[in-house]
């Protein structure tokens, strides 16, 4: 059930990304280009998404299990630290140079775009680098081995 719910959520998310135009990097860059001719569409995508999602989160916050009995695993982290800010800034630079963030890139991959494949492969490599660094940090004994 969890897997099916996950598949459906990913599918609806992807359909929303296509319908909104956000799978097109040129359109995303049009939003990020405040200095040129500005396309405010992305702000409307966010507004539509947040209007609906906030209702879903308000309901789920009061629940101890999900509608199909899964444990609630909503984030609990509160701290605002350097990792959060620096990481987000690095992401923003990457987003700004190509116009792709993770979701739209995966949908564009499904469209058979070779350029999206290149981006996704590099993104996975970046995530892999993060994992390697984190694993080294958490197991200092490996460093000497």
């Amino acid at each position, binding site marked *: 059930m969890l897997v099916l719910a996950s598949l459906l959520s990913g599918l609806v998310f992807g359909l929303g990304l296509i319908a*909104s135009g956000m799978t097109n990097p*040129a359109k995303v860059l049009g939003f990020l280009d405040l200095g040129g001719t500005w396309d405010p*569409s992305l702000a409307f995508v966010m507004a539509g998404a947040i209007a609906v*999602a906030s209702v879903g989160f308000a309901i789920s916050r009061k629940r101890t299990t999900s509608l199909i009995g899964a444990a609630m695993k909503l984030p609990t982290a509160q701290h605002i630290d350097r990792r959060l800010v620096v990481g987000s800034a690095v992401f923003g630079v990457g987003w700004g*140079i190509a116009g792709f963030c993770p979701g739209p890139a995966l949908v564009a991959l499904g469209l058979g775009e070779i350029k999206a494949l290149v981006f996704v492969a*590099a993104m996975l490599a970046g995530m892999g680098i993060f994992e390697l660094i984190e694993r080294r940090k958490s197991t200092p004994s490996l460093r000497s081995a």
Partner: protein
Amino acid sequence: MTIDWSAFTPWSALSGGVLIGVAAAMFALLNGRVAGISGIVGGLLKPASGDIAWRAAFVLGLVGAPLVYALVATVPRPRIDAGYATLVLAGLLVGIGTRYGAGCTSGHGVCGLSRLSPRSLVATLTFMAAGFVTVFLVRHLFGF
């Protein structure tokens, strides 16, 4: 700043956004999690996590979305102006940055702001600002 009225698509943006909101709400209510795509994908790279199936299913849904969309309407082709070297650099930065910052446009932007998380608000303002500055530098200062 001038608004590009020919590119501005408020209605499709809003309705697509509503679908994204429905997906995020579904995922929270059914799976009890935030639909943070960088986190879902990043978790696939942790071999011992034991929760590969639902993550892979979510990604499959995203990748399969164009196929389903095509049953109803023509899927618009994305315009990707960046060259291959730029895409590799962008992908690396997005991969590393979203994992250090613990989220991207979906997890912090859509879900975090919907949950009124101060942490996500800071993250969203930061990556938006970085995106604005980057595009300004690339397009208007260096003139690529």
